[in-house]
């Protein structure tokens, strides 16, 4: 398994961040303190990193590109928002605005299921995976793959967006759901909640990285790579690839849902814009820019692009789409496997400079 070094490097950096977030966030180190928005930003970027890993697991792992992971991300986010709204109601007895607008006198009764935090967590772990299973089953079974699969996932999230934009779907329509009161007992928007959520997100990324690497190094991971290389051949070896892909697909969806669950309390709102096909495409772009297949590239890409986005959208908003587009074109044309390629390339250039130059080989796609 290639890229062991970068995995340990990434794991080390994540652990460091995990230690530093509470220290700097609460200003425990003399003279060094992070403002709350920086803590919050770090937490959000970690959620995007988790999301990117979910996409990379499928794309880098099995060669299946999802352009609809925003669907699972939003699914986790909506479930979390429901729980937060229910607990806000329990504390304040004030109905959220969107229910009042719709003329409801109270929450629909089934929302009570979101009262319990463990039950909500279970729902986040199970429901998006179930949706992924249903969609994956019909798609993989009929051998929908490649570009076809990517576009159909995009159509799926697009449809979901249209659905959630409607007010009568019951989840706040285009205004979304907001007005969270407390997160795990800590006041929403406060420093403690921000540090807790950012740390949780970082821990989730770290756990997903280590778990994901173990998974990819196992026989299951090898089977996924075999699917990426030559799926029909694997079937002629007697493997029903449907179930292998489905397993990875559901795991990937769950990972995205966890990312959404952690993301929503940090931004304090959820609305259908998370289902916009553009977000789902951007996730793929992060992975493409960082480099596929090793999970560390996904983290790198998500962190780089999002930090750049936060900075540029404030500094030069009209410039950002151009920068993003050109970045994508540059990476896609010059660095077929993303920024991680830079390291291999620079190594190759060094070798070429040496007198006995090695024969040049195009990098594997």
């Amino acid at each position, binding site marked *: 398994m290639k890229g062991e070094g970068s995995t340990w490097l990434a794991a080390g950096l994540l652990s460091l961040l995990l230690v530093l977030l509470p220290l700097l966030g609460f200003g425990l180190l003399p003279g060094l303190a992070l403002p709350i928005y920086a803590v919050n930003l770090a937490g959000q970027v970690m959620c995007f990193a988790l999301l990117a890993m979910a996409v990379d697991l499928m794309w880098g792992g099995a060669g299946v590109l999802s352009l609809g992971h925003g669907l699972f991300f939003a699914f986790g986010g909506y479930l979390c928002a429901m729980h937060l709204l229910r607990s806000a109601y329990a504390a304040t007895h004030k109905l959220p605005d969107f229910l009042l607008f719709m003329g409801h006198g109270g929450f629909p009764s089934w929302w009570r299921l979101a009262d319990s935090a463990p039950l909500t967590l279970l729902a986040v772990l199970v429901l998006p995976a179930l949706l992924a299973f249903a969609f994956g089953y019909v798609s993989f079974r009929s051998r929908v793959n490649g570009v076809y699969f990517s576009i159909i996932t995009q159509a799926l999230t697009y449809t979901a967006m249209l659905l959630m934009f409607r007010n009568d779907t019951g989840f706040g329509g285009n205004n979304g759901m907001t007005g969270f009161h407390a997160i795990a007992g800590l006041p929403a928007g406060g420093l403690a909640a921000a540090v807790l959520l950012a740390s949780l997100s970082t821990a989730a990324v770290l756990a997903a990285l280590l778990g994901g690497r173990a998974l990819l190094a*196992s*026989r*299951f991971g*090898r*089977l996924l*790579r*075999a699917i*990426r*290389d*030559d799926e*029909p*051949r*694997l*079937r*002629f*070896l*007697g*493997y*029903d690839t449907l*179930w*292998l892909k489905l397993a990875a697909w559901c795991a990937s969806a769950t990972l995205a849902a966890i990312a959404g669950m952690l993301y929503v309390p940090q931004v304090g709102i959820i609305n259908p814009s998370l289902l916009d096909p553009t977000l789902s495409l951007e996730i793929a772009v992060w992975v493409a820019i960082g480099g596929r297949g090793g999970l560390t590239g996904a983290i790198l890409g998500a962190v780089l692009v999002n930090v750049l986005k936060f900075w540029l959208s404030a500094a030069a908003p009209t410039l950002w789409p151009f920068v993003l587009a050109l970045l994508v074109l540059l990476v896609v044309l010059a660095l077929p496997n993303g920024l991680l390629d830079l390291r291999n390339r620079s190594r190759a250039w060094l070798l070429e400079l040496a007198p006995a130059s090695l024969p040049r080989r195009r990098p*594997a796609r």
Partner: protein
Amino acid sequence: MSTAIAVEALTVGFGDFIAIRDLSFHADYGTVRGVIGPNGAGKTTLLDVLTGKSRPRRGRVLLDGTIDLAPLDEVARALAGIGRKFQKPSVFEALSVWDNLDLALRLHRRSLLREVFAPAAAKAAPIAALLETIGLTALRDQAAGTLSHGQKQWLEIGMVLVQEPKLLLLDEPVAGMSEEETAHTAALLHRLRAPGRSIVVVEHDMDFVEQVADAVSVLHEGRTLFEGSMAEARGNAQVIEVYIGR
């Protein structure tokens, strides 16, 4: 000698094009059957139908004389004991030689879950033995994509072998091989003969077929032109006319 695979009145077509027309064919356990014929005779299509890659328009394919293969997909056929080496070497290039064989070796045909979680140690002995057989022990940790053409052919033969197939289908196993490699492959095939195994070799190299096959079928334009020994085939006027003579 019982029949391993029997094909009856098979017709296969793509659109307006008929690749195989009313073909009958069989291969027995314990034998090696050669299939020869000019390009477009339907040889590869025949293998496609046997493995479930293509669906026939008419006709039956029976395994062991009783099992109708029509309802089985390619996965089920592979699990039922049909192994195939493709014309174009098909190995998993990103995986090492060892991992290629590790995936090909099935310990739990009935349960994918148990297969995925089978301990690597349980597969080590048979894989090591097979690596000796195909002569790739030294390259066991190398990515399959970096092997030479001949080495890929052997690796793929090894992958098919490790499945322990009842019916072994080889599509041009020596295409692109040097004479030495071809001889090596022929020797390998001799060792593969077993009473419970039927081997079908599709090949253009006639000397190779004569060397390994007990009997040959000559296909021409989707039909069986001749069945018998290679020596008889060489003397058959029709065969000479459509194939050998040119």
